[in-house]
């Protein structure tokens, strides 16, 4: 999408993020502060997330290498500080180096991608393995399915999740059903991974902010993944590429530059369809994935202090097929649960999680409050009102309060 290329020129993105980071560390920028990167002067809850101190990111080498999910050789290896786009670039590079069958393509991928995720890869791995396609989402995904059907590991990029809809037919009717329709012939398009930046970024409005994950979770045959951090992005993307099922890999674009941590330099995968308990607690469970996890963490810090409670935070990581057992176990323990996501509340991931909780008779009996959802309103993402639409710390905090007081 040419227009988006302009709207999201890296320099502009950097400017807005510099502004935000400067704010986080208390530096007054000389520029006129922008509405989308400020918070009210007296705010106690809705203050920007400080990505440089959040425990959700591994700021130290040791905390990165301590991850028990990493293989021993990676845990004994080195790390490098990376942001999310750099870790994705690292994963793509490792995948391209490990297997000649890996192909990387999409709109504007060859020069490095509009978000820099494929920087340097065309030069390193050749123009026939990393290349631009014409501007056609249905063509990109159809092409990728065909390549995967003949043994390629096709990593296709859709420039923004907002533009995946022209490829919806190919994903729903073809990619998802390929193995099923081929049956005993045994052919499949497991080599397919479709990457797409998603989520709000402060000023993306209607067509640069969407999180259409729940549209994909209604399709049997696809794996839908959303990482929250550079370490995760690398491990989960390498898993998606290695997976023998077609994967939709959604990258929260707000984290491309904001989320920085020590990332193991070795090649490693993280398990798909397995949730991660980020913080243990006994009084309430919060379930989320991707960018809002940081919001949740900030809200938890305040709520635990204010209400004297202990909250468990779960990152779904793969939103379908999802780790139901992990969630049910947690809720059986805490008896209270809320689900947080950016996309519209109606028929979102929260609806599925809530329904599954009440459907499980052991968990249902343990519920001490209704399962609550904090999500985008049932509207589109409006430019000037984004911060009133995306779940923020105050809304999560308030919902925790209501769940506890129920």
């Amino acid at each position: 999408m040419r227009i988006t290329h302009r709207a999201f020129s890296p320099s502009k993105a950097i400017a807005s993020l510099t502004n935000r980071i400067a704010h986080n560390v208390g530096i007054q920028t000389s520029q006129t502060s922008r509405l989308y990167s400020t918070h009210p002067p007296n705010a106690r809850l809705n203050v920007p997330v400080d990505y440089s101190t959040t425990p959700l990111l591994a700021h130290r080498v040791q905390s990165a290498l301590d991850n028990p999910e990493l293989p021993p050789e990676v845990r004994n290896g080195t790390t490098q500080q990376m942001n999310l786009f750099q870790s994705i670039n690292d994963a793509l590079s490792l995948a391209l180096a490990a297997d000649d069958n890996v192909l990387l393509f999409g709109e504007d991928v060859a020069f490095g991608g509009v978000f820099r995720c494929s920087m340097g890869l065309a030069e390193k791995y050749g123009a026939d393995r990393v290349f631009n396609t014409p501007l056609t989402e249905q063509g990109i995904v159809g092409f990728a399915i065909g390549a995967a059907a003949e043994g390629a590991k096709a990593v296709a990029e859709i420039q923004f999740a907002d533009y995946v809809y022209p490829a919806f037919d190919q994903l729903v009717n073809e990619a998802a059903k390929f193995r099923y329709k081929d049956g005993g012939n045994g052919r499949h398009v497991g080599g397919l991974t479709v990457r797409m930046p998603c989520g709000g970024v402060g000023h993306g409005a209607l067509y640069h902010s969407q999180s259409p994950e729940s549209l994909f979770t209604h399709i049997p045959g696809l794996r839908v993944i959303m990482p929250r951090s550079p370490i995760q992005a690398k491990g989960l993307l390498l898993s998606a590429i290695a997976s023998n099922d077609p994967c939709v890999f959604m990258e929260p674009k707000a984290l491309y530059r904001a989320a920085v941590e020590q990332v193991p330099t070795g090649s490693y995968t993280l398990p798909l369809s397995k949730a991660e308990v980020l913080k243990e607690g006994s009084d309430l469970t919060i379930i989320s994935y991707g960018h809002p996890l940081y919001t949740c963490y900030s809200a938890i810090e305040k709520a635990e202090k204010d209400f004297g409670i202990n909250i468990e935070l779960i990152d779904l990581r793969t939103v379908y097929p999802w780790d139901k057992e992990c969630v049910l176990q947690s809720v059986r323990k805490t008896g209270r649960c809320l689900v947080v996501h950016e996309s519209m509340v109606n028929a979102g991931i929260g609806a599925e999680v809530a329904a599954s909780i009440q459907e499980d008779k052991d968990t249902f009996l343990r519920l001490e409050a209704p399962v609550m959802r904090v999500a985008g309103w049932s509207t589109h993402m409006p430019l000037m009102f984004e911060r009133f639409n995306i779940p923020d710390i105050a809304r999560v905090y308030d919902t925790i309060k209501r769940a506890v007081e129920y």
Partner: protein
Amino acid sequence: MKTSLPCSRQAHRNALSVFLPRSTIKNTQRWSSSLSQKAGAAGICFPGALDSKFTSALKFEHPSTHPAIRTYRCTSPDGDIIDPSVIPPPDSLALKLYENMLAVSIMDVIMFEAQRQGRLSFYMTSQGEEGTCVGSASALEKEDVIFLQYRESGVFMERGFTLEDFMSQLVANKNDPGRGRNMPVHYGSKALNIHTISSPLATQIPQAAGAAYALKMQRRQNPETPPRVVACYFGEGAASEGDFHAALNIAATRSCPVIFICRNNGYAISTPTLEQYRGDGIASRGIGYGIDTIRVDGNDIWAVREVTKKARELALTDGGRPVLIEAMSYRISHHSTSDDSFAYRARVEVEDWKRRDNPITRLRKYLEKKGAWDDEKEAKARSRIRGEVLKAFSEAEKEKKPSLRTMFEDVYEELTPELRAQMNELKEVLHKYPQEYDITEFEGGRESLNK
């Protein structure tokens, strides 16, 4: 200073090489800065169009100012070879092709009737298009990968799909590799390198381009691999889908060794081509995408075969490039068993096509003139094929259906915990309400749902 062609492709390439980095980027990036409009140039030099000369005559290009693309034929309707450069295959092969066309047409009639009797849920015949399918398939190599729409039984027949294979799929028994999941005529065969058919129209076209790119890369990695192409079939109606546009464009820009074969049979269900497009058929579009294109008489099997052979050579030239073939024919059959085509076209029109020009009768005339075929052989072949079809059909009907378990398998590589739980749930329902479900025809019964 030469000003006539300041922007020739060669000049452009030369200019480009100056700007290319040492790295491996070749021909994928065009540095527009390497192009500039020279004073006094005879043509434009914008990056978007090379070699376009200026004109001071304001004139819109209209299709009517260009003659329609010609239709290649090499056999007359009387079965005589009219292109002297064409040497038809030996009679043994010609007879095999003829019998394959005949077999498809006989199977079509029987299965159409079987659907009318309620023995099949659905069927689609390919009457009138046997020549396009059998002829083109005979010019491909066995290793070539094929993507189909649905009206190409002749391709399966020519590649060696047996009557048992056809019937197993049609009745969805346990021998159907599709495991009873797909509607009838949605065949597929890994052994024959034909991808399983899906109902959504045109989705296979960009897939074919991607598959062709994968084959090209495999050969680049391992030059020992035999050169392979992808052939992709679709109707003229499907060519109106966005996927057709996406596919031809991407195949051209990525130089994919793929042969697009359009069966232009005049109708998409009830919609005549007049309501499908206003250009010169599908072939005229290929040129717009920068693709080698040809139109061929689909009722002339030797022409189709010849054209496909040449297309295959072209597709493998210069490391790969796409080719478009538009095969003209007439859909003699109804669209499907769910369609009565006399609701939108005259019976006499259909009868005319059936008698006047038909791929089977044209090859029959050719064979008769060579003394390789006669009425007696025809009668014998027809009765033999009919017997074989009926036998394969009744045997396929006697087979059990695939196990209920296969309903849950192959959604993912492995059964997910959710699917296991749902399989168990279904098993319990079948156990609690045995009188509500007849599962005797499914292999393994309820027990197949065990974990």
